[in-house]
Every structure is written in C-alpha cells, then in structure tokens.
C-alpha cells in the first residue's frame, strides 16, 4: 500500500505520535512537581491508541510500501504492550524512586518506546527491524538510567548502553551479511532468495543468523545473550524493570516469531498448518537448545539471589526460556501458546514487580529479609504475592499454569522428538518452585508476627487487584484469552 493510503491504517501510531509530541510540549508548561501529570496524558493517549487498534478492521496488508505490515498478530501484541504500559504508568505515579525527578521526559520517552515496540511487532523489513530495535533500546537506556542520583541506576544505564550498542552492532553486521546473500532487506524477498538457492548450507549463513540472534536474543534475554538483564533490572527504576520484563520481551518475541517463520521458513505455520524450514540450517534445534539453556540458567541462578528484584530478573529469563520452547515446534499451536503465555505472564510478572515496588516504597529495600513476616503485617500484599508466586511457578489454578500448559501441549503435539523439551520445561518448573516459594516462606513462615495490619494505599491496591485477579481468574476460565489469541492468529504472509 502506498504511503498515503497507509496513513489511515496507521491511526494508532499516529495517535501515539501526537500524544508523545503533545506530552513533550505539555511538560514544558508544567512545574517540576506537577510533571507526573504528563503520565496521565500519555495514559489517555495510549487508551485512545488502544481503542483505535481495537476498532480497526483488521485487514491483513503491508503498509508504507512494504516497510511494515498490519495484521491481527501485530495488533495483538500492540494491545498487549499498551496494557503493560498502562499498568506501568499507573505504577510510576506511585513509585517513590522517581520522587525528586522531573517526570515529564519519563512518560514521553515511554511513549516513544511504545511507538518503537509497535514498529517492532509489525516490521517485515530489516531496516524497520533495526530501527525499531534501536528506538526501543535507546529509550530503554535512558529510562533505566533515569534516576541520575542513584549510582545503581547510572551503572545499569551504562551497562545497558554498552551492551545494547554492541549487540545491535553485531546484529547489524549479521543483517548486512543477510543483505549480501539475499540482495534485499525485505523479509519476503529474502525468503524468496533463500529458497532460490541462497539457503543452502554455508558457514557465512550460520554466522549471519547467529549474529542476528545476538540482537534478538538480547532483546528477549535469551541465554547466552542475557547477561545485561539482571544488572539492568536491578539498577533500573522498578517500574521500568517491570516494563522491560514484559513489553520489550513481547515485542522481541513477536519479531522473533515473524523473522524465523517468514525468513527462515516457508511461512505456512503462520497459516496454521505444517511447516518446513526453507534453509538447511538446523535452526529449530538450535533454538530448542537455547530455550532449554535459557530456562535452566535462569532458574538455577535465580535460586541464589538475595534480592527479590534480581531474583525476578532471572525468573524473567527463565520465562523467556519457557516461551522459546514452543518456537522450534514450528506450528501454529506453538505460536499461539507463546501468545497465550505472554498474556498470562504480563499479569503475573507485572504484579510481582508491583509488590516489590510497594515494599521498596515502604522499606527502601528489596532483599528477602525485608519480606520476612510480610504476610502477617500486610495480609493483602502477602496473599497477592503468593498468588503471583504460585502463578509464576505454574501451579493450577492460576494463569501461569495455563500458560505453561499450552506451551507444553504445543511441544508435545509437535511429536515425540520434542518430548525432551517438555521434560526440561517440567523439571525447570520444579526448580523454580524452590525460589518462588522462598518468597512465600519468608513472608509467612519467618519473621515476627505482627498484630498491626497495614493495608496498601488505593492506587497500589488497585494495581495489585488488577494484576492478581486475572492471574487467578485466567487460571480458572481462560476461554476469552484463547478466543482472542485465535482471532489474532492471522499474519500477513507469503507462502512459498
């Protein structure tokens, strides 16, 4: 579709852009202490944009002369990202870490980040991919270093920026090699070229794919490209950590799915059928191994952590591993299960971070000791945190279980050659129990019991309910999620 026609279908992004611009302008007129108000502007803009997405007749087409696509799959991720961002914006309003900083930029940059994610989930061109990754990365660098007076925040930004620049550089080099092989940056043309002979096995192709994986893997914290995750998550403002653990990960996975199925495969899986890789490169096996490595490492190291925030960082690595497990199966079920998992993951992971946020607001700390006896002091917080931990472990009847269930189901449906993946996933769930329940143990079985009961304040309570109720309810009745995912399972694709 040409550029002008595309504009009408680009309404959500346009709304977002306008929102960001007006936020920047709005910020200029606000005194520093009123700057959090910008958040509500962005909040409104996001809702509008979300509504625009919701009402869009989901045509499956390319926009802007094949630079991006518009399809229900992308819309699904956009809505997911908006949802996560809305939660984070509310949480940011009560994040006491941000006190004393002018917060206008915080929300504007968050808006730009969301814009970048929108682009990421709909990219079908290496240029758009690179651009979107950079937008997301650069905004993330800034946001994680937002607490300028906090050394840990500074440090996390520095690590993030070096790591990010390096990763995107390597990925870029890999993309240049792909461009050299295919002569194009467009996914569909690359796919054609690969099938036409460029896909035969050659070392340069391996190198190119691995280099691209460095970039993608960095975005979704896949082992061995995950090293930045714990340090950045620990140092960044908690709300940003929560955001990073959900939204860019979702975007990265969407990109991952699209790239591997459209460029490296025949795209049939995107139509809901069987699947073949178009290259001789055994990348599904590679991804499978990486998935196992990711969840195992995430879980094993999470066992060791003293800080709950950092533990959650590793746990988010492990969850990336679970989701990646469904990728090598190369089936529609696999992709759908990842989408389902993301929905479930959004609620439980954000919720857990919000509890961390609240405790940090209260005690200024985030180690396990700070949680001792919490279940008695703040019963609601304790119960809600227990729900999140149970859900993250993947026990019924919580959303986390349903997510895992669908992942395992798609893996097992993939045939007996994938059973080992399911076993690894299963054992990892057992290991994860140990550290998730350390939180529960600390909250309930340790520390002095207190008779004074504290109740969290309204916005936090609302956030916790808004995340914990779905975490529980979606474990009991998740048909709507399935429907949504099934309806969203339409790609703009070209089948060979």
């Amino acid at each position, binding site marked *: 579709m040409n550029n002008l026609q595309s504009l009408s279908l680009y309404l959500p992004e346009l709304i977002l852009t306008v929102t960001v611009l007006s936020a920047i302008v709005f910020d200029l007129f606000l005194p520093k202490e009123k700057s959090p108000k910008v958040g509500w502007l962005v909040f409104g803009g996001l809702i509008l944009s979300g509504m625009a997405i919701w009402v869009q007749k989901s045509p499956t087409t390319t926009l802007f002369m094949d630079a991006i696509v518009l399809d229900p799959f992308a819309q699904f991720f956009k809505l997911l990202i908006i949802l996560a961002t809305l939660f984070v914006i509310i949480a940011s309003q009560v994040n006491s870490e941000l006190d004393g900083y002018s917060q206008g930029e915080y929300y504007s940059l968050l808006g730009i980040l969301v814009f970048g994610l929108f682009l990421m989930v709909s990219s079908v061109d290496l240029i758009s991919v690179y651009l979107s990754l950079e937008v997301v990365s650069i905004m993330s660098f800034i946001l994680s270093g937002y607490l300028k007076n906090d050394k840990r925040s500074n440090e996390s930004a520095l690590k993030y920026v070096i790591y990010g620049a390096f990763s995107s550089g390597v990925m870029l080099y890999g993309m240049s090699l792909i461009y050299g092989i295919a002569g194009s*940056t467009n996914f569909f043309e690359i796919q054609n070229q690969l099938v036409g002979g460029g896909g035969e096995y050659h070392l340069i192709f391996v190198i190119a794919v691995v280099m691209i994986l460095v970039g993608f893997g960095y975005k979704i914290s896949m082992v061995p490209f995950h090293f930045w995750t714990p340090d950045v998550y620990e140092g960044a403002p908690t709300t940003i950590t929560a955001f990073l653990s959900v939204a860019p990960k979702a975007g990265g996975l969407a990109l991952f799915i699209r790239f591997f199925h459209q460029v490296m495969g025949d795209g049939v899986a995107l139509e809901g059928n069987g699947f073949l890789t178009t290259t001789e490169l055994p990348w599904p096996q590679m991804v499978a191994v990486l998935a196992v490595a990711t969840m195992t490492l995430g879980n094993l190291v999470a066992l060791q952590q003293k800080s709950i925030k950092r533990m959650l960082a590793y746990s988010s690595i492990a969850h990336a591993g679970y989701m990646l497990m469904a990728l090598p199966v190369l089936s529609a079920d696999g992709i759908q299960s990842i989408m389902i998992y993301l929905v479930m993951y959004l609620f439980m992971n954000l919720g857990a971070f919000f509890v961390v946020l609240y405790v940090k607001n209260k005690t200024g700390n985030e180690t396990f000791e700070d949680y001792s006896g919490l279940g008695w002091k703040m019963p609601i917080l304790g119960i809600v945190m227990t729900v999140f931990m149970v859900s993250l472990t993947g026990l019924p009847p919580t959303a986390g279980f349903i997510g895992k269930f669908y992942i395992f189901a798609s893996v097992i449906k993939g045939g007996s050659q994938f059973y080992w993946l399911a076993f690894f996933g299963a054992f990892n769930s057992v290991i994860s129990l140990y550290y998730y329940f350390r939180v529960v143990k600390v909250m309930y079985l340790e520390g002095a019991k207190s008779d004074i009961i504290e109740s969290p304040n309204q916005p936090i309570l609302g956030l916790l309910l808004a995340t914990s109720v779905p975490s529980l309810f979606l474990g009991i009745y998740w048909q709507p999620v399935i429907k949504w995912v099934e309806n969203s399972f339409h790609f703009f694709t070209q089948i060979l």
Partner: protein
Amino acid sequence: MDQLVNYLYISAILFSLGLFGVITRRNGIAVLMGVELILNAANINFVAFSRFGGMNLSGHVFSLFVIVLAAAEAAVALAIIITIYNSMQTVNVDDASSMKQ
C-alpha cells in the same frame, strides 16, 4: 578494487577490531569508539553489497539510517557516560560493577 571480497575483508577486519575494542578498552568512550568501528564495518558491507548486487540502493539507505542512529546512540551513550562520571568520577566501565551475581 573491483572485487567484492576485498571490501568484505576490510570490513571483517574493522569489525573484529571494533569487537576487540569493545571487549578490551576500559575507558567508556574508547568502548564507544569500538562500537563505531563495528557500525562502520557493517556500513561498508551494506554499501559494497549494494554496489555489487545491482546497485539497488536499499543498502545505501540502510547505512544512512545506521549513521543517523549511530549519532543518536553516541549522544545518549555520552550523556550516560557523563552522568556516570558525575556520580563516580570515573569513566572506566569495569569500575561500574557494583551489581553482580
């Protein structure tokens, strides 16, 4: 000069040197220079492939964007390095290692 591989070798060397710089330089700004080398290596590739791939200019456009983004990235990176310098009086990246394990 009319051989694609010549350019590719040059870019490979540049890329490797860039990697080496990123890995070994302690000074944050020097690390940044390493990153610039990597990006330039990629750009050489893009332009070279464009030249030998029938002069389709998407390679040029790509490298154009890379240059632009490199600028943005450099700006942000330097800003971050400066905040680090302000708070820690050092720009050595391995001094920033309070968070680990």
